[in-house]
C-alpha cells in the first residue's frame, strides 16, 4: 500500500500558485525527498499533507485517509518536524517533550523514558532541564526533531530537518533518520534544498520548482538520466549554432546546448572525450577560454530539469537568517 498518494494537487494563495498540479506517491517504509529551491512549494505541500492547509484542488491521501475529509485520522498517525522552530521558549527541553507526549496521549512513564532516549540521541541530555530560551538555534532545531520523534508516528514529515545545523549534527541526524526507516519501517517524507542530503538519504527524490514536480526517481536514476559527464566550455565564436554542430559530430557526445554564454555538453567517458573536443574546436579556429568537467550529480540534474542552478549556499544563509529573526522575535 502507498503511504502517501497525491493527485494533481493545487494550492494557490490569491494569484500565486504555490503548488501546481503535483502528483506522486510514496511507498510504505520509503524515505522520500522533496528537493527544490526557496519558494518552490515544499512547505506548502507538507502543510497540506499534515492537515494544516486545505488544497485548492486535487487530492491527497495519507496513510489511507483523505487529508481533508479524514483530517483527524491523519493527525493520529503522522508526525511533523516543521521548518520553523516551534518549541516553547519558556519551558525546559524535557517539559517541551512531555507536553508533546501529552498532546498524543502517551502514558507518563513511557513518555519519560522515551524523552530521555531522544534527548540522548540528539545530544541534549545535559540541556534537558534548562529553559529553551537559553538554547542555541541548532539546539532548538534538535529539540524540535526530538519532539517529532516522541510519539513514533507511522509517517514522519521533516521540513528541512538539518537547516542551519553544523556538519556533525547533520550527519548524526541523517544516520538517525535512516535508522528510523530501516529498523522501524517508518515512512519518511523530507524536504531539503541540500543536494548532498537528498542524495545521501533518500530512496527517491522529487524535484520541485515553481510548484511543479519536474522529475521523480531514485538519485541514481536521476543522475544516470543525464546520460554521462557534463562538460561546460567557454568558446570564442561568431555563431553558437556552428559550435554546437561541430561538437555534436564527435562520437561520444550525446547532447550539446548553448545556455547563459556556456556550451553545455553531455558526453560519455568525459576524460577521453574532453581532449578530443578541444582539438576539434581548435582545428576549426575556435579558441576555448575555459573548461569545466563535472561528474553527474543532483546539482547537474537540477540544472538539467529547471535550467537554473540551485544555490544551496545562498538558500541556507537566507533560511538561517529567517530562523534567527524568529528566535529573536520569540525572545523579545
Amino acid at each position, binding site marked *: 500500500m502507498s503511504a502517501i498518494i497525491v493527485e494533481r494537487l493545487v494550492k494557490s494563495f490569491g494569484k500565486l500558485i504555490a503548488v501546481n498540479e503535483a502528483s506522486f506517491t510514496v511507498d510504505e517504509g520509503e524515505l522520500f525527498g522533496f528537493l527544490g529551491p526557496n519558494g518552490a512549494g515544499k512547505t506548502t505541500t507538507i502543510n497540506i499533507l499534515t492537515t*494544516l492547509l486545505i488544497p485548492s484542488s486535487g487530492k491527497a491521501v495519507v496513510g489511507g485517509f483523505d487529508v481533508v475529509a479524514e483530517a483527524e485520522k491523519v493527525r493520529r498517525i503522522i508526525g511533523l518536524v516543521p521548518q520553523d522552530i516551534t518549541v*516553547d521558549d519558556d519551558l525546559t527541553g524535557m517539559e517541551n517533550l512531555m507536553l*508533546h507526549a501529552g498532546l498524543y496521549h502517551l502514558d507518563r512513564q513511557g513518555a519519560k523514558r522515551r524523552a530521555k532516549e531522544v534527548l540522548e540521541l540528539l545530544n541534549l541530555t545535559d540541556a534537558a532541564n534548562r529553559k529553551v530560551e537559553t538554547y542555541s538555534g541548532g539546539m532548538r532545531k534538535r529539540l524540535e526533531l526530538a519532539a517529532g520523534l516522541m510519539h513514533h508516528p507511522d509517517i514522519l514529515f521533516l521540513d528541512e530537518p538539518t537547516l542551519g545545523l553544523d556538519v556533525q549534527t547533520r550527519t548524526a541526524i541523517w544516520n538517525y533518520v535512516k535508522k528510523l526507516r530501516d529498523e522501524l519501517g517508518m515512512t519518511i517524507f523530507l524536504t531539503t534544498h541540500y543536494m548532498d542530503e537528498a542524495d545521501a538519504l533518500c530512496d527517491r527524490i522529487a524535484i520541485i520548482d515553481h510548484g511543479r514536480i519536474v522529475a521523480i526517481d531514485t538519485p541514481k536514476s536521476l543522475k544516470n538520466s543525464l546520460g554521462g559527464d557534463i562538460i561546460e566550455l567557454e568558446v570564442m565564436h561568431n555563431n553558437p549554432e556552428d559550435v554546437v554542430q561541430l561538437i555534436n559530430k564527435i562520437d561520444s557526445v550525446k547532447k550539446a546546448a548553448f545556455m547563459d554564454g556556456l556550451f553545455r555538453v553531455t558526453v560519455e567517458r568525459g576524460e577521453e572525450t574532453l581532449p578530443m573536443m578541444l582539438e576539434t574546436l581548435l582545428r576549426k579556429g575556435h579558441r576555448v577560454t575555459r573548461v569545466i568537467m563535472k561528474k553527474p550529480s543532483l546539482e547537474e540534474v537540477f540544472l538539467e530539469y529547471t535550467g537554473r542552478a540551485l544555490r544551496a549556499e545562498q538558500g541556507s544563509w537566507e533560511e538561517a537568517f529567517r530562523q534567527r529573526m524568529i528566535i529573536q522575535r520569540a525572545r523579545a
Partner: protein
Amino acid sequence: MRDIVVEIYVLLGRELKKWYRSPFLLLMTIIQPVIWMGLFGKALNLTGLLQVPEELLRQLPPDATSLIAELFNKVMTNLFGASGIDYFSYMSVGMLSIVVLFTSMSSGMTIVWDRRLGFLNKLLVSPVKRGSIIISKVLSGVVRSIVQAILVMLIAIALGARYSPAGPLAPLVALSALTLLSLGLSSLFISIAVRLRSWESQMATINLLNLPLMFASNALYPIKMMPAWLQAIASVNPISYAVDAVRQSLLMGASMSISALLLDIGALTLFAALFTGVGVLVADRGLRRG
C-alpha cells in the same frame, strides 16, 4: 471525554507554568490596577468632597445639623450604596473587576503569540481537539484573573481599604461573580484574538477595548453620576454587574441587597454562558485551515 480532560490538563499546565514562572509579567499586570487604585482611590476622595466640614456644622443650629446629616446620608446612600463607605474602599472593590478585565484580555490574546511562533501549528497537526485548545486558554484566563484579583484585594486591604462582608459566604460569592466575568471576557477576547495575525493588531485591539470597558462601568464612579448615554452603556456592561456583585457582598455589610445580588449573578451567568458558548464556536472556526 476523558481525552478532552487530559488535553485540557496538559495545555492548561503549559499556560500556567509560563505564567507563574515569569513573576515580572505577573507584577506588571497587577501593578497597573494598583497604581490606578492609589491615584484615583486615594487622591480623588469623592466621598470626602461631599462631606460637610466640621466647623461649618458646629456653627449651624442643631436641627439644621441633623437635617444636613440626613441629607448627606441620603446622597451617599444614593450614590455609593451606603453612607459609611470611603471612596478608596469603594473603588478598590471595583478595581478587582478591572484586574479580571485586563488579565482575561492579556491571557486570551496569547493565542496571537502561539500562532506567530508556530506553537499553534504544533497543536493543529496533533490529534488534540480544537475545543481543548480554546477551553484551556479560557480556563487559564480564569485562573490567572482570580489569583491576580485576590492579590490586588490583599494589597488594597494593606493600603487601608475597609471591607465588611455580608456573611462568611460573601467572599465566595464575590469570587464566583469574578469567575463568571472572567469566563465571558476570556472567551470574548480569544474569539477576537484567534483571527488576529499580528502582534500590532493585538495591541490596537487591546487599546480600543480596554479603557472604554473600564470607564463605561461603575468600577470607578457610581453610574448615577454619569450622563444618560453613558449610563445606558454602563448598565449593559458586564463589568458593572460584577462590580456591583462584589460591592454587595464585600462592602455593604448588613445593608446588602439580596435582590440586587441575585440580579447581578443572574446577568453574569447569562453573560458567561452566552459568550463562552459563542466564543468557543467562533474561536473553533478561527482555527480552521486556510
